[in-house]
């Protein structure tokens, strides 16, 4: 089995889709000739032609609006937004158009659109390129939000997103793109959207994370387990919306303690929603207040201090310890 980075896994998924379905089209800024800023679409235009893999002008609202028109016509557009922070230029098209069109048309028009966008910190970029914008879109009924943490899931979730009849926002973390390789089947497979997964079993405390924070949570779990301080269960969401409440609840009801980790700022974030889910389903099992480890409520931390402000294994360890205090 090939060992691929997330970029190679995504590239392979896109190629498979283009190969087996003529309805699939890929477009965005620099995705064609240049193969994308991070080379996710490298070689695809050469292989499948300019008609199906093409560059657009720098016009995010038109990129997504056009993709919506293409999707309601029955094709399968995959639109790339070069950096997730730029998606705000298409906010109306994503929120008011793509996400709400099915409801507004009484089910007549559905938007099978995939939007891919890169984001994420610890890469010495400033705001706009690093911004974690998932919380902005999570507040929108009608769109699914998927954030993979590894190459295998990235490929499987992308296939699932393209097969999904509703709009899906696939957020790809910049730091995970090339940070490690993993065995990835070269064939088609899907990873289900809307399903979280227990990536590490434990019994004392549950850490809930997604994207780049999964590795941070796992590292914290490893530290506490090697010092015999605690048995830590790590739940990876994979999909932010719709959220897999069952997996979260099952784990927290078992452990009685929970720490929520995300790279995005704190207030009104995904973590707040997870805490609400825990309150609803696990209140009587909770032994301690739920902890949140997040970035601060500032614009994205500047490069010189981002390693301190984006959650680290050490901060997650401290939060876990607080839940274990007598």
């Amino acid at each position, binding site marked *: 089995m090939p060992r691929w980075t997330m970029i190679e896994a995504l590239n392979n998924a896109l190629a498979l889709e283009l190969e087996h379905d003529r309805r699939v089209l890929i477009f965005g800024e620099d995705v064609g000739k240049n193969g994308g800023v991070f080379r996710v679409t490298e070689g695809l235009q050469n292989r499948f032609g300019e008609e199906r893999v093409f560059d657009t002008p720098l016009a995010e609202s038109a990129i997504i*609006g056009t993709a919506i*028109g293409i999707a*309601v*016509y029955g094709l399968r557009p995959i639109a790339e937004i070069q950096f997730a922070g730029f998606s705000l230029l298409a906010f109306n098209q994503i929120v008011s158009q793509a996400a709400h069109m099915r*409801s507004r*048309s009484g089910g*007549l028009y559905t938007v099978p659109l995939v939007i891919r966008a890169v984001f994420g910190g610890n890469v010495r970029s400033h705001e706009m390129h690093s911004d974690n914008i998932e919380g902005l879109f999570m507040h929108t009924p009608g769109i699914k939000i998927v954030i993979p943490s590894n190459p295998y899931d990235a490929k499987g979730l992308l296939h699932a997103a393209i097969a999904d009849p509703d709009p899906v926002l696939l957020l790809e973390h910049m730091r995970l793109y090339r940070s490690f390789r993993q065995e990835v089947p070269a064939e088609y497979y899907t990873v289900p959207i809307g399903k979280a997964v227990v990536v590490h079993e434990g019994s004392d405390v549950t850490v809930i994370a997604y994207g780049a924070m999964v590795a941070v949570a796992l590292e914290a779990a490893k530290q506490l387990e090697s010092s015999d301080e605690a048995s830590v269960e790590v739940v990876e969401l994979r999909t932010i919306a719709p959220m897999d409440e069952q997996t979260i609840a099952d784990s927290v009801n078992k452990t009685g303690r929970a720490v929520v980790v995300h790279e995005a700022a704190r207030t009104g974030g995904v973590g707040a929603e997870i805490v609400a889910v825990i309150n609803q389903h696990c209140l009587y099992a909770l032994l301690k207040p739920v902890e949140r480890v997040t970035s601060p409520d500032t614009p994205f931390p500047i490069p010189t201090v981002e390693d301190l402000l984006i959650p680290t294994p050490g901060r997650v360890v401290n939060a876990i310890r607080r839940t274990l205090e007598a």
Partner: protein
Amino acid sequence: MAISNATLTGLTRTQLLCMHNMMLLMRRFEEKSAEEYTRGKIGGFMHLYIGQEAVGVGSITALRTSDKILCSYREHGLALAKGMDPRAIMAELFGKATGCSKGKGGSMHMWSNEAGVLGGNAIVAAQLPIAVGVAFSAQYLRQDTVVACFFGDGAVDEGAFHEALNLASLWKLPVVFICENNQYSMGMAVEKAWAVENLLSRAAAYNMPGEIVDGMDAIAVYAATKHAVEHARRGEGPTLLEVKTYRFRGHSMADPAYYRTREEEQCWRSTRDPIGIFEKMLLEEGLATQAEFDENDAKATQVAEDAAQFADNSPDPSLEELYTDVMVDDSSALTYRYERK
């Protein structure tokens, strides 16, 4: 009186009477809507097309049923002209389960797969990039479908207008952009909003043909649209039409219209009514009689009455309906549905 068999711009007498009938239907339908709004049967915001009928009828007569239209929120008339069932439109205005979107779209969002109506839109200019996508699909699938995208003069001031026109021209897509310049973007006079006098320079800026059309003359609108549609169907790309018109009513039902004088409104109504202009021309050309006009008027009034009665007698959507059509799999919306205690 002898009825001439002559044609106008290639339109037969039957077609011309059909256009007359549709303009009357738009007028009577919207008058009825306004009445029902005042009675509290229709809520929210409602934007009437009265005064602009020649634009919708003239342009849509130049389209095929298989062609698509996308519109702004002032779209009841356009939806009628494109062939949507008046009952489904009126029921949607009433918010009833029998409406074209089961009461979920409302006045500003009319849809029909059969008639090729891909929605009105409450966000100004949002429909333009979507129209580009629809046209792209038709081109990709080698279909000869043409997309007519309607918007007001206010939409020209939005960024989406420019992004969409650039893409459509760049990719030579089969779109006709129809700007219904009714002189006011809500309360702002167009000359205070536009840095240019008209849209010819905007069309030139995006390297596409442009034309200024008298929007009170249905025949002129038909001729200009027909030309643009043929251009698009031949694969030669988009056209921008600036159709100069005037809405006789306020921006919405709630508009006191402080931004223009009653004299100005009266002047347009009495001298530039598109239905009056159309009738006068047909009479002068000997193509129709007053009796035929009266008959069309009676028919239109009857259809509007029937639509309102149908809407009034239709059931409200059920509470459960809110939670369906959010996504194809509605389980997450249904999880939090309101439970009646």
